[in-house]
């Protein structure tokens, strides 16, 4: 399948009073048409900043996209002018954010907020946009959609608001939907509903999805490929199956060890990853995971490993991945 989005060596930093925060340090990834890519990692690992950089939604200053390319359908989004990036935002690439409670404007009706993009990008009239808004709300499963257009965000529950956000994002039939932890602020049953909605709509509309999460469990049934990020680096990238069956980066192993499994003994303990991620202002010279790594060697302290091939379309940034593969013990096949 054709490549839709290709991010090459993206570097984003924030210039703060305490120094330069290196949030994204040379991240590269690609999304094919219709593909779902999962970006996984703990808070502050650069997942959100990466995709916000793609959309050029990083607040500048203090943010700064220091380098790299974002090729979307062959155009470098980092090089185009404001007018052009606006014509992509909400139209070709749309985004759903983490907290539906704060992501909708409290003083505008849902109808207004959905119609906006339709009128702007598709040149619809007010009535056409209203009609389409009803369809969109129905599509994401909001009951009595006709009567809810003139309601304000506070009249919806969290899960319903996230549905509205999704309806808004899908309004112009984007080729790429970026979902930035869309289920994190919701309770578990609602999470499952939202995941199902996105899965269904993805199938129906054939768009590509980048799904950001810190929860490998959420992404397991959703993604075609998974990129694991740590301290602003992609440290492992493989197909969904491969990540769960054959993880070769110690951090990915750690993440897998920290999610509960249904097929394990009742009393089986979860293993947390000890320690904290490195200070992004004073980045270590070697591997960023060095301090927390069970498999570390001398070389890891001084040299940061590049991504290398560890299998079929399976990349890993670890000097000792072969060692990890041997010593890790059973991971279990799903």
């Amino acid at each position: 399948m054709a490549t839709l989005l290709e991010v090459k060596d993206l570097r984003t930093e924030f210039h703060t009073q305490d120094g330069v925060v290196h949030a994204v340090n040379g991240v590269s990834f690609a999304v094919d048409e219709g593909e779902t890519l999962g970006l996984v990692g703990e808070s502050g690992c650069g997942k959100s900043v990466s995709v916000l950089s793609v959309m050029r939604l990083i607040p500048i200053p203090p943010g700064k996209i220091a380098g790299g390319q974002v090729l979307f359908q062959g155009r470098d989004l980092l090089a185009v002018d404001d007018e052009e990036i606006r014509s992509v935002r909400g139209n070709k690439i749309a985004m759903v954010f983490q907290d539906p409670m704060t992501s909708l404007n409290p003083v505008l009706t849902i109808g207004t907020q959905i119609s906006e993009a339709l009128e702007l990008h598709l040149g619809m009239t007010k009535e056409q946009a209203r009609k389409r808004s009803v369809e969109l709300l129905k599509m994401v499963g909001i009951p009595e959609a006709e009567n809810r257009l003139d309601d304000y965000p506070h009249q919806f529950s969290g899960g319903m608001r996230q549905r509205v956000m999704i309806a808004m994002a899908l309004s112009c039939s984007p080729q790429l939907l970026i979902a930035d932890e869309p289920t994190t602020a919701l309770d578990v049953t609602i999470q499952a509903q939202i995941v199902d909605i996105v899965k269904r709509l993805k199938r129906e509309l054939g768009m590509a999805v980048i799904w950001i999460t810190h929860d490998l469990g959420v992404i397991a049934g959703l993604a075609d490929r998974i990129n694991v990020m740590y301290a602003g680096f992609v440290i492992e990238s493989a197909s969904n199956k491969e990540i769960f069956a054959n993880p070769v980066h110690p951090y990915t192993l750690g993440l897998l060890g920290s999610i509960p499994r249904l097929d394990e003994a009742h009393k089986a303990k979860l293993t947390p990853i000890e320690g904290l991620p490195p200070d992004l202002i004073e980045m270590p010279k070697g591997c960023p995971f060095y301090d927390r790594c069970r498999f570390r060697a001398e070389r890891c302290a001084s040299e940061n490993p590049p991504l290398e091939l560890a299998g079929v379309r399976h990349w890993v940034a670890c000097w000792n991945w072969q060692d990890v593969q041997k010593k890790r013990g059973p991971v279990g096949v799903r």
Partner: protein
Amino acid sequence: MAAFVIRRLVWLPILLFFVSVITFALGLYGPGDPVQVMLGMHANPETIERLRHEYGFDQPFYIQYLNYVANALQGNFGYSLVKYRDQPVGVLIAEKLPATIQLNLVAILLGCAIGVPLGLVAGLKRDTWLDLVVRGIVVAGISFPIIFLNPVLTFIFSRRHEFTLAATNFTFSIGPFLPMVQGHWDGLFSPKIILPAFIESLGVIAVLTRQMRAGMIEVLSEDYIRTARAKGLRERVVVVRHAMRNALIPIATILGLMLGGLVAGSFLVENWFDVPGVGQLAFDALISRDYYVIMALTLLIAVAYILANLFVDVLYGFLDPRIRQS
């Protein structure tokens, strides 16, 4: 909503009771005596005593207070004792009120027209030189006392200034830019209102600019602004439709409260510019211990502020859909 308004109105008499008792007591027990002021320093003590008795000032506090309340409830707020001797207070205030309301109205409008855009620009261009300049203007505006601004701005704007170019010996003059009020007050649509209204509006400008700037900065960092940008909206639409509406809600609150101040005249501005308003009346009444005038004005201002507060609470419900519901 109706129940809410009624509940608030029930509080009105209770608040008025406390305000009136305190004002009455301050007038009665404070230093100075209207009869003394009326008759002068060398008056005969017997005459003073007789007049005090005539006015009922020798009666105990609660009798005087109850008499006052009984009369006030019948619409009689007493008579001026000193400067406007024997004129009913109600008539006096009704006479003076229009000038004050006109002046304050123009001051508030001027304050909005200047303060809101200044705050908007400062908030949008945060930490640039523009922001710095605006903040400087605001600080200057509230720091210069009116008693200083009155003569200085009058000198600058309503006087003729003559300059002589030393080299050519050519003299030219500019001004006056604005007419002074002094002499007679022409009301709302006369350019004479601009200078006093501008001086009165400085406080309004400062408050609104600060609020608007802080509001914009806060709102612009909200998640829904990022959502609006992610839709591909132009920055102008993001600011006007998504940010400004939210930032203007607290501004409306402040303006509503300022409506209460419409009936309160400024001593300094009204006296300097000779605006025949409530501020002048209050000033005269205070220095001559004109009890009933002071009482009536205090109550009037109290009622105005209480009603303005109520109005703001109702208004807020219309502006903010979240409050409208609850």
